[in-house]
């Protein structure tokens, strides 16, 4: 078990290094960041300062060395606009993104598991249809549009929640719902189909043959097995989640890192964007790591194949 976790951590670190390198290559191949920035602000002096700060006057492998060294120290560099360390900017913004994400995820889980399970158990019943409709709508609605429509209805027409910004707990409702619905949609379908597979399995028939009641069959024997593919998938859902959060933060003027990233792109403050990409990538990789470990805890078979 321990060696398995160790191995997964090693793989995660490797993945992280890949991402960092890719970001480096991408940022250098897009064009000279100093030039892009100064082209707009036009100070020769500023350019020299920038070059020095980023080590742009040195050969590429040297720049890469500096870059990796800084990353290892947890230093993502400074904003080219105002010189504030990027770690500081991100740390300020991260909690807002994180809490919104948790809210949305909580919403998604709270609805998707019961809907998926009930849909599978009572196939083709009204609840199954409801689950299907929710799922299909969630997967087809563009989140930015959903957000705007919700603002029109709940903030403009009925005025029960704030339309944008982060003011109190009520301001979580619209963005959280917008972000959560899409994720929920995927999960409902996954829970339902994986539950259907499990309910067909021999061990569920065996449990029934032992005289176990239907509620226990579903909640004990079936659900835990059905969640295994759901957990595997949840790591991937996160990708959609991150995409969604950039857009949703934008729609609701949410003070998270997604908004910062979009602003920085517009103002050409690339070190910030670079930092956000690395943070998102790291987040994705470590959530997947966590998911794998969780997987091993739920499914006793994993520990042994990993060795």
């Amino acid at each position: 078990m321990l060696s398995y976790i160790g191995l997964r951590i090693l793989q995660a670190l490797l993945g992280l290094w890949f991402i960092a390198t890719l970001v480096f290559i991408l940022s250098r191949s897009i064009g000279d960041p100093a030039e892009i920035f100064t082209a707009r602000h036009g100070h020769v002096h500023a350019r020299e300062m920038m070059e020095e700060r980023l080590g742009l006057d040195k050969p590429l492998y040297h720049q890469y060395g500096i870059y990796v060294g800084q990353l290892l120290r947890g230093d993502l560099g400074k904003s080219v606009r105002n010189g504030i360390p990027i770690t500081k900017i991100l740390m300020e913004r991260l909690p807002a993104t994180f809490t919104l994400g948790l809210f949305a995820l909580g919403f998604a889980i709270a609805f998707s598991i019961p809907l998926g399970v009930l849909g599978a158990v009572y196939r083709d019943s009204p609840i199954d249809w409801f689950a299907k409709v929710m799922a299909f709508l969630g997967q087809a609605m563009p989140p930015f549009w959903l957000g705007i429509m919700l603002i029109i209805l709940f903030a403009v027409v009925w005025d029960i929640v704030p339309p944008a910004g982060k003011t109190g707990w009520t301001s979580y409702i619209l963005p959280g719902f917008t972000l959560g619905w899409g994720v929920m949609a995927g999960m409902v379908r996954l829970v339902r189909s994986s539950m259907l597979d499990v309910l067909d399995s021999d061990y569920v028939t065996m449990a029934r043959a032992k005289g176990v009641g239907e509620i226990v069959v579903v909640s004990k024997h079936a659900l835990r097995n059905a969640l295994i593919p759901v957990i595997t998938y949840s790591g991937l859902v996160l990708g959609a989640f991150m995409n969604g959060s950039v857009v949703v933060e934008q729609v609701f003027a949410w003070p998270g890192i997604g908004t910062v990233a979009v602003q920085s792109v517009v103002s050409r403050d690339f070190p910030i964007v670079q930092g956000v990409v690395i943070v998102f990538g790291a987040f994705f990789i470590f959530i997947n790591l966590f998911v794998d470990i969780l997987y091993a805890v739920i499914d006793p078979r994993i520990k042994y194949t990993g060795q």
Partner: protein
Amino acid sequence: MASASSTQIVMTNVWKLRLISMVSGLKRAPKIPTVILGILLAFGLFGQWLAPHDPISIDLAKSFTPPVWHEGGSASNILGTDKLGRDILSRVIIGSRVSLALSLTIIALGGGAGVILGLISGYSGRKVDSLIQRGVEVILAMPTILVALVFVFTVGRSFESVMFILSPFLAARFTRIVRGETLSIRERDFVAVAKVIGTPSWMILLRHILPNVFNTVIVLATLEVGHLILLEASLSFLGVGVPPPHPAWGLMVAGGREFISSAYWIALFPGLAILFAVLSINLFGDWLRDTLDPRRRQL
């Protein structure tokens, strides 16, 4: 004893049968999504003849005309007009073109690359496989929208740049699925028999493996079209899609955002267009999967 000639007669019949079964299979497709898809396709192909107005001609006198069922609406602009007085309906119709063209191109490019990489990765095994898989993992770990945002913003907004940056993400998804499928087909006995016979590897890939992953690829491609339409719309919304004045649905929603309290219709209708397009593609893809590839309920 039937002679060889009777075999040939039956053979031609089988081709006919195949065609018939394909057509009759399509008859069982879900009706409404298929019709919407048909309309969508018609919009994309013949938009300029179907649209009642020129989608980019500005007529400030008509700006903010509400849809026809509102007071002040006009029958010539059924879904109303935007700030510059452009006809919403015409823009929605023409807007389908960008969505469709972009997602189909990306499916062809990225999907094609993904299928090839997936086949190679799954069939060759060990080193080549793990190299490709690491690459796929990294790409999948990247926040698509952010990367696309940065890229398009720096190299400039164009059809090509959006296509260029989204294709690898799609390729990665295809690679993963096709690889998995290839791995399992590779273990089937008919591949072993082909090796025993001495069938060359390229022929095994082409004749034995590729036809067996084909259904999965078709289903995946269909479902990914919906995904790409959403992605493209998001990018347009953020202002890095295909540049104006070509109407794109995402861009239209973004344009209507400022006027949500006064002219909701500017944002509503292009959004609905996206919703219906993606919904019907997904429903169609779902049906395809159930008929072609019932094992892959998770796709």
